[in-house]
């Protein structure tokens, strides 16, 4: 590219900045500058001035940067398309190969240092890791855009609450049952929607998610409606973690002669959750290397080709849906026992969007990326607490910027290359 030699055109940048300033004046002027007060208004021109100035300076700097060789390279990056997986050299050793063991070590060591607040934030992060991993199978690997994923999460959470209320089931019984129930629901939803293509699938799943939430909200006599339902604490071989055991039992701390510590319950949830996450990580790792995992990805890339090759697309899609849904069911059980209470407002469309954002930001199909993105997106709002009212705004900006910066996610899905073994005919 010869463009690198071009001198930097300051005049162009100035014009760019002025144009951007004018547009931002029109855009921000009315809404930032005229604050409605009843049917009247207050004028706040200073705020508009600041915003316009920031936009102009930003545009000027960006315009200058884009003319430098480095900027041109960034610009050029937008033009290229990349699809499929990135194949690495056969002997490639990732610089990040230590990241999983390191994360595991941190995860084991960290509860000794953390207090309950940090512990709960991390539990929430792990729950989203689970959700992200599940949705990653559906969206990232199988390429089925699911906007109602939260429905399965809700099934898991309410499974625990309802199971306790009506059948007296506890955490341990419900954990596998919820995964089953959510998987079954995923299978049931999967059947009718298999005929649909990409975005119709999206809206149908969105509708399904809303239907589940509305039923939970409206069926007052069964689910408690908007009031929600209490959820029992998990137990350890029948020992409860409460200060006092509920039905005449012996609480955990008395049994072991420890002093009462409310953290134990969360520590316990953390340990079980961590083990489940490891298990799911392992299963997913194996699945992607098994025929079914390859079939998911093949179907994502070209459905017609797959079907003409004799791949049973119904079975393949259904398996993705079912496995993804049952992972969400597991996450739901943990969420319910973490919160000790469930109500429908935890399962809105925004939650689905957040999980989808985790998958896309992490890099579709990439496991490590999803783990990182899940923590970024759950810890970020907590870190941003300092910005109080600008918190969600910054969160939105973060999503847009991350997408523009890394449209394919933090970590691209990649495969180790294959070399023909010696002595084998090509």
């Amino acid at each position: 590219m010869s463009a690198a030699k071009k001198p930097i055109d300051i005049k162009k940048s100035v014009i760019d900045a002025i144009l951007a300033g004018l547009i931002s004046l029109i855009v921000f002027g009315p809404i930032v500058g005229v604050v409605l007060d009843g049917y009247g208004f207050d004028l706040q021109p200073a705020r508009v001035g600041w915003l316009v100035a920031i936009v102009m300076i930003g545009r000027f700097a960006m315009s200058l940067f884009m003319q430098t060789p480095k900027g041109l390279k960034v610009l050029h990056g937008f033009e290229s398309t990349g699809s499929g997986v990135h194949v690495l050299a056969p002997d490639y050793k990732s610089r990040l190969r230590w990241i999983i063991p390191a994360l595991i070590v941190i995860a084991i060591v960290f509860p000794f240092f953390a207090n309950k607040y940090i512990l709960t934030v991390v539990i929430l992060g792990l729950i989203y890791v689970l959700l992200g991993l599940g949705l990653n199978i559906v969206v990232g690997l199988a390429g089925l855009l699911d906007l109602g994923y939260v429905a399965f999460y809700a099934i898991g959470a309410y499974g625990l609450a309802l199971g306790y209320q009506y059948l007296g089931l506890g955490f341990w019984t419900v954990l596998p049952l919820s995964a089953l129930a959510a998987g079954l629901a995923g299978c049931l939803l999967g059947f009718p929607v298999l005929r649909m293509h990409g975005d119709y699938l999206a809206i149908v799943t969105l509708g399904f998610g809303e239907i589940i939430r509305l039923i939970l909200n409206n069926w007052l006599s069964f689910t408690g409606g908007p009031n929600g339902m209490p959820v029992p604490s998990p137990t350890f071989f029948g020992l409860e973690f409460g200060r006092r055991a509920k039905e005449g039992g012996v609480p955990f701390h008395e049994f072991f002669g420890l002093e009462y510590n409310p953290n134990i319950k969360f520590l316990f949830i953390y340990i079980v959750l961590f083990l489940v996450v490891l298990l799911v990580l392992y299963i997913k790792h194996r699945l992607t290397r098994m025929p079914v995992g390859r079939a998911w990805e093949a179907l994502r890339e070209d459905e017609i080709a797959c079907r003409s090759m004799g791949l049973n697309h119904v079975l393949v899609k259904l398996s993705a849906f079912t496995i993804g849904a049952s992972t969400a069911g597991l996450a739901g059980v943990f969420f319910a026992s973490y919160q000790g209470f469930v109500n429908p407002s935890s399962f809105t469309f925004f939650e689905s969007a957040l999980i989808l954002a985790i998958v896309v930001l992490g890099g579709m199909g990439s496991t490590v990326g999803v783990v990182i993105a899940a923590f970024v997106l759950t810890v970020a709002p907590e870190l941003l607490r300092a910005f109080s009212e600008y918190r969600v705004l910054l969160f939105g900006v973060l999503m847009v910027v991350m997408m523009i910066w890394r449209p394919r996610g933090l970590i691209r899905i990649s495969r180790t290359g294959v070399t023909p073994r010696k002595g084998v005919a090509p």
Partner: protein
Amino acid sequence: MDGIFLQQLINGLTLGSVYGLIAIGYTMVYGIIGMINFAHGEVYMISAYLAAISLALLAYFGIESFPLLILGTLVFTVVVTGIYGWVIERVAYKPLRNSTRLAPLISAIGISLILQNYAQISQGAKQQGVPTLLAGALKVDIGTGFVQLTYTKIFILIAAFAGMAVLTYIIKYTKLGRMCRATQQDRKMASILGINTDRVISYVFIIGAAMAALAGVLITMNYGTFDFYAGFVIGIKAFTAAVLGGIGSLPGAMLGGIILGISESLFSGLINSDYKDVFSFSLLVLILIFRPQGLLGRPLVAKV
């Protein structure tokens, strides 16, 4: 016909025509770049603020006649919202034009968070409203009862259908419309034929935002109140309407909106309003199972 039933039908029709106007924004953007613009509901919300601001400003300058007020507000809101549509496309979607299908979707979710909080921070977290502009109603007596039609509702129906007619004319008979349709059919081919597809995409975003702005003015006039969260519910409904009618099809968006509006209204009128959303989503799922391309959408033929 029963007066109550007819009233419910009219309620549904006004609600549906408004859904339809917003659905146009979804359907056009989807038709041309195959992307679900999740921020579209928030664009409508911004336009509601703009309409209220414009009304307040016009009232401050002493303009009181209804035609002037409404005309001024319409022009102001449509123009500024159109620019919003353009800026959003430019900042959040254009850099992602060539990346994966899901990247702009996430970007759009980010934009909708930004717009919601932008409105909340700059205008305060309170309920906003506009004074009643067009008071009074038409009371039509029919055999078994009466139907009450406010002037605002009549105005909404007229304006919505006028807006649709203008848009249909633009798409069908003008050069811009032909360019849009060409880009929708085959973006690569259109650019080979000398159409600046990037610009056409920008136009589509502007048109979609303008239609949302029209809806914003009409809804604000009719219900008189909104807040920074107003775009969410109506955005989901309008998106449903667009898919119901067949995403990518303009008459489909309008039809989908009206079907959705009437079915909601009749279901809550005749059965129970608690489950009206469950009903509309179930209707959508059912229609899509039997007609996966929506009511008026063209069936998707996959070629190898």
